[in-house]
């Protein structure tokens, strides 16, 4: 399959409450491959994801989709881009007042003219893909966090998106279920030619599924390439992350003491 970059991130800078959280982030997301964005908590992964799905447009730099700048998309173009993508948010982001079956049917009812029976069969198929076909009539509140996450993935897959964005797919899942989701993401790439972007800090899962890894640290890309290339990196921070070594907790004793003083 071709592997030209479907999405290019060029010199992206992002700010949150006046603080810079992304610094000149540049990398490409190839078509029909699994790109894993990884890094420690708070490194800017989720902010980057929000830019990629068009939820956060303020910032500097560009995100090119098929060569067109996402930041300059009209409302109509943004809508059609969102129809091409599926997103699994960290918490699953399900509608609490609907059963799982109804949750998954929503995008199909809104965006297609498929018959009700076809939609019903598709929702069962998607729930089966994530191992939840026996829970179709359950409400989200009746499920564990891991099950809600899987249901969220089923909904993200409802429209067979061209690009699937997944935020922390393995968090809250037992190892067997997490391995099953990894397998599913690879099958989706293989079978439907899906372009998959996974945001995670789970090393084992990342190296198992990634065709390309974007490793981030404090809002910057610190390593980029195929898993083997990243493994061979000699960068200290990359090695620290790969070897799961704790950060030395550096504090400024003066400002720490200052913060302990009663300001009243």
């Amino acid at each position: 399959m071709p592997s030209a970059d479907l999405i290019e991130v060029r010199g992206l800078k992002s700010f949150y409450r006046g603080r810079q959280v992304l610094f000149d982030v540049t990398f490409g997301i190839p078509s029909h491959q699994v790109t894993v964005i990884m890094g420690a908590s708070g490194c800017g992964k989720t902010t980057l994801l929000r830019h990629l799905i068009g939820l956060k447009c303020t910032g500097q730099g560009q995100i090119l989709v098929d060569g067109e700048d996402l930041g300059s998309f009209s409302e109509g173009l943004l809508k059609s881009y969102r129809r091409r993508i599926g997103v699994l948010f960290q918490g699953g982001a399900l509608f609490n007042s609907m059963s799982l079956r109804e949750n998954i049917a929503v995008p199909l009812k809104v965006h297609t003219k498929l018959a009700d029976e076809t939609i019903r069969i598709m929702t069962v198929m998607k729930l089966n893909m994530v191992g939840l076909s026996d829970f179709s009539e359950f409400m989200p509140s009746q499920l564990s966090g891991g099950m809600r996450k899987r249901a969220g993935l089923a909904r993200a897959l409802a429209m067979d998106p061209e690009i699937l964005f997944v935020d922390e797919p393995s968090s809250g899942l037992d190892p067997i279920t997490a391995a099953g989701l990894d397998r599913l993401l690879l099958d989706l790439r293989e079978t439907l030619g899906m372009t998959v972007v996974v945001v995670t800090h789970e090393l084992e899962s990342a190296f198992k599924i990634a065709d390309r890894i974007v490793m981030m640290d404090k809002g910057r890309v610190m390593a980029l390439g195929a898993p083997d290339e990243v493994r061979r990196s000699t960068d200290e921070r990359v090695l620290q992350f790969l070897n799961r070594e704790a950060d030395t907790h550096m504090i400024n004793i003066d400002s720490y003491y200052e913060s302990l003083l009663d300001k009243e």
Partner: protein
Amino acid sequence: MIKSLISCPSPEHAVLEFNGLFDRSTAHKVRRDSLKLVQKQGSRELEIDLTNARCIDTSCVAVLVEILNTVRKQGGKLKLTGIDDNTARMISLSQLDEIFEDVIVAEKK
């Protein structure tokens, strides 16, 4: 865009051939044309030929499941021919291989 062509090689056997892109924008037409023929065919054999159709999403698998269910309810028999590797993989991804085992005719594109 997808087009359909009906032929009846024998009184007991009807063939519905599809030509074009079979996806969520055309699935309703495949469904409508197939189910209409199933009503007419009753318990006889219906063959759906997808040699010239390209299935690119799971809506086509869902429609094929629905057609299969309807044919079986009527006591008829469904045969799928011209299923390409991608469609076979989608059936497999949906864990429906066993259900389609006796339906898909071996020769592939």
